[in-house]
């Protein structure tokens, strides 16, 4: 699935929920399912700023695909991270860098997350795109 298709799938999933509590139940469930990051990666340099809760994120490239893994001390944050990883992980650096991320707005998350949380989500996205950009640039230099 492309990044776009994945986003559309999430939007469809969320459209089933009638109220915000159900959406949160779902997000929390995702959080609980998120494969944990390797403890070795839970270091300060993997910490993302701008959250009331803490998020650690690790990225690596395998066979031309960027793989993200992450953890957080808060469960909802973990669920949100999980959504973003679902969408972006496993794609090329180029695709990630160019991706137009619209699902957060479309499922109404942005205006319903606390400002701190939505800032956190945005800085997480920024971080992921920055990583992709760095990889992309390296690839171009290697060419």
């Amino acid at each position, binding site marked *: 699935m492309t990044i776009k298709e994945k986003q559309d799938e999430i939007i469809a999933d969320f459209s089933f929920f009638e109220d915000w*509590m159900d959406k*949160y139940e779902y997000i929390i469930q995702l959080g609980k399912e998120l494969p944990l990051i390797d403890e070795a990666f839970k270091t300060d340099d993997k910490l993302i700023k701008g959250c009331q809760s803490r998020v650690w994120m690790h990225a690596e490239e395998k066979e031309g695909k960027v793989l993200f893994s992450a953890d957080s001390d*808060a469960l*909802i*944050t973990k669920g949100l991270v999980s959504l973003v990883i679902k969408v972006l992980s496993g794609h090329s650096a180029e695709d990630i860098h160019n991706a137009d991320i619209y699902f957060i707005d479309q499922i109404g998350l942005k205006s*319903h997350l606390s400002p701190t*949380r939505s800032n956190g989500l945005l800085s997480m996205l920024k971080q992921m795109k920055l990583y992709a950009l760095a990889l992309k640039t390296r690839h171009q230099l290697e060419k």
Partner: protein
Amino acid sequence: MITQEQKEITKLDVNKIRIDFPILNTNIYGHSLVYFDNAATTQKPNQVIDSISDYYKNYNSNVHRGVHHLSQMATDRFEEARRTVRDFINAESEKEIIFTRGTSDSINLIASSFGKAFVRKGDRVLITAMEHHSNIVPWQILCEDREAQLDVIPIDEKGELIFEEFEKLLDSDVRILALPYVSNSLGTVNPVKKIIEAAHSHGVPVLLDAAQAVQHIPVDVKELNVDFLAFSSHKIYGPTGMGILYGKEEWLEKIPPYQGGGEMIHTVTFEKTTYNELPFKFEAGTPNIAGAIGLDSALKYVTNLGIDSIHIYENKLYQYALEKLSSIKELTFIGEAKERAGAISFVIENTHPFDVGEILDKQGIAVRTGHHCTEPIMDQFKIPGTIRASFSFYNTKDEVDRLVLGLNRAKQMLL
């Protein structure tokens, strides 16, 4: 012990009161709002909102020195606000009432001006381990500037000041002690009268951060014999951008002005400027006129309900909340001082406060989560933050019940 008379005055008619606060009718995600974030800021009654509109619609004008009618009206009401504040805290004179932007501004004023006059290299400044950042950072800045030392009175695991440690820290190098009357994250009510007496016996003046006190308990600066006292309008039902600094006249006379500008001068030449008398010496620039007028209405509203009645009503609600919250077995209170007011902080085992807060919000319940600008307390208790519910006289037992239900729901989802 509550006397019969006190029982009478506790009969605040909360349903009638709630009508005065339009925001309390708001729906949040389809639930009626339960506002338990009063320590962050209180809601405003129509009386306050209307007095601000009335000012702008009928007599908005710059104050003092004006020759025209509107200026006269605005000045009269502005200075009436000052007298209202004076009476509210029982100050000796309106000269002792300085209008500022808020508690933080008031504390910065003292840290800077008192510091300039009295704090020298090697001197010490005392604060406590339960300060709000606003009562830490200004003193850190001062101490860094002056090469003075900042000492911290520790608190115990209940969240009470350790009085013996305080006494040990008191000596002739201490220039000033700054502490909160009521802690915003633990709810601790400090025995300030006793503390002020002890400080004074060593010749140390005291600044009280009363940001979380004036809206909950009667505060009388003369009885406390406190030297400086700071609070914010927005936490006592008044408008934002407005604060109070009380200072004993003799102290305010002794310290230099803080900011320069219009209002605070007597005469200005490029060679020599002389300063205006109190309180104007400390009020540079056009003041927050609407802010003062709104605060005036807020204090009159509170006085009208009666701060004693408010105290009794809120205390009952506080005890009720403690009891109901105790029924959640995964819940641990952070702060268990004997005397408490305003805020209750807690954590729920194996959950993050932030998650709990978010799920409460989706049920229409507004609490605050995090460090509440008191990071050192969180460090001491080794937690990332707490969930804090803080109360006002417009809150009800029903709302406390909804909080408990909401917490149980959050627990279910998160555990």
